[in-house]
């Protein structure tokens, strides 16, 4: 079975620019997560989708971050405008149910200069 796909793998932008990340979860997985992982830290949840509905976005900086999961499959995370502190790895994960193990993609390493 194919794993979680993410693109791009690396992105370098200047502060105040915008950027978008794409995620394709494992086929059939209803739950999709976006995490932010700063160097030396564990992943921090930004948003959780169940099918195409948002279950938890309490830690998403909504003034600059947005995410959508159209048709309950692919998802896009956007940052606009980016700040220096947004430099991190953005991980997408999916699971068949919120109670079960999560499968992570390789992540997108964002550098904001």
């Amino acid at each position, binding site marked *: 079975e194919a794993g*979680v796909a993410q693109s791009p793998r690396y992105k370098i932008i200047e502060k105040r620019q915008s950027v978008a990340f794409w995620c394709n979860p494992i086929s059939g997985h209803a739950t999709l*997560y976006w995490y932010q992982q700063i160097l*030396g*830290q*564990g*992943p*921090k*949840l930004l948003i*959780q989708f*169940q099918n195409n509905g948002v*279950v*938890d976005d309490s830690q998403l900086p909504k003034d600059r971050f947005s995410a959508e999961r159209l048709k309950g499959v692919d998802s896009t995370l956007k940052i606009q405008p980016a700040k220096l502190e947004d430099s991190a790895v953005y*991980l997408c*994960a999916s699971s068949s149910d*919120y*109670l*079960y*193990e*999560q*499968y*992570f*993609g*390789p*992540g997108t390493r964002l550098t904001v200069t």
Partner: protein
Amino acid sequence: SQKIEQNSEALNIQEGKTATLTCNYTNYSPAYLQWYRQDPGRGPVFLLLIRENEKEKRKERLKVTFDTTLKQSLFHITASQPADSATYLCAPTRNQAGTALIFGKGTTLSVSS
């Protein structure tokens, strides 16, 4: 606020020994706890899940214990190998939709031959 602490950021052991990693949590009552492995430049990979009513769980050379009284989980790797070198993350969570995994910072294990 909820807090997760994993013992020493780095653990160095010799091949063949047992590695023991500790995960302590406070202000939290998780219904289950997951352990993940993360290699540099990659997303976390699920290893084991243990529920609050399970005291111990094993998978090949891995063993996890969960003590809800001590608010602690121990993760053991027996007969460790250099290939076990990685960062190990613990993630306790409650048993309800919308409750995200909260990851610890991780413990980086180095196994020398």
